[in-house]
């Protein structure tokens, strides 16, 4: 999974090292949200604090759900009622400060903390998806 964070990331860069969390460690990162992933046969999470090309903070969480059906299940389970589909990006939704998509066995959650970082999320998403083929 670390390879997903190498090379071009739409101008974004990993600020510190990528954290890896297996099933045993998922509570370390998302606490009480862990069981709904574990129930869906979650395998591993790669999480990174990132900076956009403009230096704005973002968080990138890539969940390896083992099978595409599991990724689809968690994507549907966490889909916000008011989040919007993304044009030209199947299986993706965006809400303010958030961009979420699934690709193959991966489920990806990108989070921004301000408007400038939010604008950089689609570029990061496209770059990550390109590495998941």
């Amino acid at each position, binding site marked *: 999974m670390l390879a997903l964070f190498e090379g071009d990331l739409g101008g974004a860069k990993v600020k510190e090292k990528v954290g890896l969390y297996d099933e045993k460690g*998922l*509570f*370390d990162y998302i606490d*009480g*949200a862990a069981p709904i992933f574990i129930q869906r046969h979650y395998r591993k999470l790669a999480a990174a604090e990132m900076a956009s090309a403009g230096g704005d903070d973002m968080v990138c969480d890539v969940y390896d759900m083992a099978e595409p059906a599991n990724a689809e299940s968690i994507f549907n389970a*966490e889909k916000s*009622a008011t989040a919007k589909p993304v044009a030209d990006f199947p299986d993706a939704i965006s*809400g*303010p400060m*958030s961009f979420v998509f699934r690709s193959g066995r991966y489920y990806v959650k990108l989070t921004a903390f301000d408007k400038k970082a939010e604008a950089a999320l689609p570029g990061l998403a496209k770059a990550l998806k390109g590495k998941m083929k």
Partner: protein
Amino acid sequence: MDRRGALRVGMTAAMAVGSVALGLGLRERSGSKKTRDLPTLKDHRVDKPAGATDMAIVRGPDPAANVRRAVEALGGMGRFVKRGERVVIKPNIGWNRTPEQAANTNPDVVAEVVRLVVAAGASKVWLTDASVNTPEQCFARSGIEKAAKAAGATVIRPDASAFREVNVSGKLLHTGDVLFPFVEADRVINVPIVKQHGLSLASMALKNWYGVLGGQRVKLHQNIHLSIIDLAAMVKPTLTILDATRILTANGPTGGSLADVKQMDTIAAGSDEVALDAFGATLLGLNPNDVGFIVEGMKAGLGTPHWQNLKTVELGS
């Protein structure tokens, strides 16, 4: 790795090898041996003056004003904090999230609580939480550390030296490592946010006590509702100020998308955490009877979910 993380590894590792019962047994055996020498937290509650209001619900656009009006409706901070007392304030600072993302308590709410406690004459005002994500990020991104310091609080980050082992004396939890201000304080003020939670349905006042603890994660997650009640029964807070300025309606406790956040502009305050959580549950569209820790809290005698039967004041803007 932060302290909470280190302890969770132990918990999940125990789960992975199917040794949950073994983990509990070891803790219980060592706990029963040690408990004679360990401190027990004080009862931080104060007597209710005759005729005093039990619960205040205030709605309005200014979070700080809502806090002031709610506390005033209860009789003022002087009802809860006397001059010279040491006070610890416990917001939710668990997450690397901004105030707009509503995973942590609103910093304007926290700062106003600090100001009221300082004005009441407290000799020491600590503010602390055992963050889930990296504490440095949580305390900064939430805006709480800056706001609380400016208002006069001493902010304690949850590094390893900040914990003391105490008796919990609960049904599941016998001993635990808690942040030291809870051992030393005369009064405790709980300032949780209202949010949805994947495992316990909701995180509000009672669930906020997970953030005092640095250990025993196996027990906490094996029976989350009873663990919550064990911790609430241990702390016995003086006052709770429930922050529903913004609430997280889905994908809690982490959140992230503003699509999951609802602006409620509401503060509720009182001494009955079960009643406050029952009220908070309704804001999330939940029936309080469906929330395990509310039911267990009532059974344990921590309060009543029937907040409408209490002497309650509701104020609008």
